């Protein structure tokens, strides 16, 4: 379905995750972050977002342990930066699919 985010029409799934990571940009990231209650994206937020996008683009699956071992943040900081559910929220802001299990 189409959704207007930061004044741009993008394709999203039922839960608001971008369907096409190429439609993503910084303004969209800020708008999604704001919807999730993160009012400002710091440099550290961006470092995590860029790292997640790089990993996905290289075909690597994401999990919290991997983020913790990335050298960009540790898991505690990851929870502080993206409270609630860090991997699902950071993925959403980064324009990536929702992390899922098989069911």
């Amino acid at each position, binding site marked *: *379905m189409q959704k207007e985010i930061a004044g741009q029409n993008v394709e999203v*799934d*039922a*839960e608001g995750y971008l369907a096409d990571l190429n439609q993503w940009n910084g303004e969209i990231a800020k708008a999604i972050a704001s919807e999730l209650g993160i009012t400002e994206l710091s440099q550290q937020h961006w470092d995590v977002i860029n790292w997640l996008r790089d990993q996905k683009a290289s*075909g*690597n*699956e994401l*999990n*919290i*342990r*991997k983020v913790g*071992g990335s050298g960009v943040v540790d*898991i*505690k900081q*990851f*929870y*502080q930066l993206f*409270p*609630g*559910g*860090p991997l*699902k929220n950071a993925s959403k802001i980064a324009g990536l699919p*929702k*992390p*899922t*299990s*098989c*069911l």
Partner: protein
Amino acid sequence: MENPTKKIVIIGAGTAGIMLSNKLVKHKLDVTVIDSSEVHYYQPGFLFLPFGKYNLDKLRRPLSKLINKKVTHLRDRVASINYSGNSLTTESGQEVGYDILVIATGTHIDASATQGLSGAGWRKNIFDFYTPDGAMALREALQNFTQGKLVVQIMDMPIKCPVAPLEFAFLADDYFRKRGLRDQIEIEYVTSLSGAFTKPVASSKLGHLLTDKNINIVADFYVEKVDPEARKLICYDGREVNYDLLVTIPVNAGADFLHNSEIANELGFVEVNHGSLQSTKYPNLFAIGDAADLPTSKAGSVAHFEVETLVENIMRSINGQPLEESFDGHSNCFVEAGGGKALLLDFNYQTEPLEGRFPFAMFGPMKLLNPSRINHLGKLAFRYIYWYMLLPGRKIPFIPNKMSIKGKKQPKIS
């Protein structure tokens, strides 16, 4: 033209390793399987052991009866691999050369990866059920558990059979209900993911199951440490979950010799092309089953569907032909829902589990993503299919390697 001099070495005689070796010998190749075990377990049966169904004898067979006599079975463990020299060394010091190497070492639980998990509470009030010992120890613990809080909990993804913890929670609800104890026992499902069901159609279709069974869910809970004295799980964001009996799915990891190796990721799973199963580092190296870092379920059915692709690609590799990227992530499994019913799932990399009929589009007889008695009977019958058709490398009628979209309902796009 056959090339009998080519030597294929498979490390691991689990579901994938046995199926693959039995298929490859039919191509007149020199096949060696390296595995120190004498027996093989039907692992889907571990789910039922804690509830007093089955005994271990029903779930194990000697490997010698499962592997084709023409396959050389080397009872040893791999210590190291010389990838550029096409040879490996075993723990007993044997050097084994190969033309093609397949890693089929599966995954195992690593309780030591989480602080406090393998300490004072392990197998006292903390249990796993992904191992025969763990499942049997849990059986005794459940028998003695008459009141308090049972927590079923997942440390991290990926795990072997991602739905098994959910099935465990459903079966535990049944088990205590039948014993007349359910009112005295609280059941909580704790997961590092955003919910018990994370795919949209499954969530909308099955989301009610936990509520109906009065199972509380705690999501996005990634355990930093376990405090066995206080009997609590502590999340990285400070949240805590108390338990009286903890059934945990510890971090899953690949074989020890793969950790910190150039061919595997941080959890010890071999990095492969998702369609061809060829290593991203060495052309004569492949991985199959749980040992591969594929973005699909770690399950026997996935290994089963991978085998066709891998046999084809090994033959192509031997004959100097380009490989096929034909594995589509197909997975097909039964999910116990409690009450003598089960669901059936059929999905792949691209398509989430959907509703519909299986294996025949209009007739079924099995319904996808709906709890039914026939699916439960299918799950029980699968043990025979496993021993007599799957492991010997025979084709299972009507179940294609590639997932079919026929008989599946596409979700409405709003």
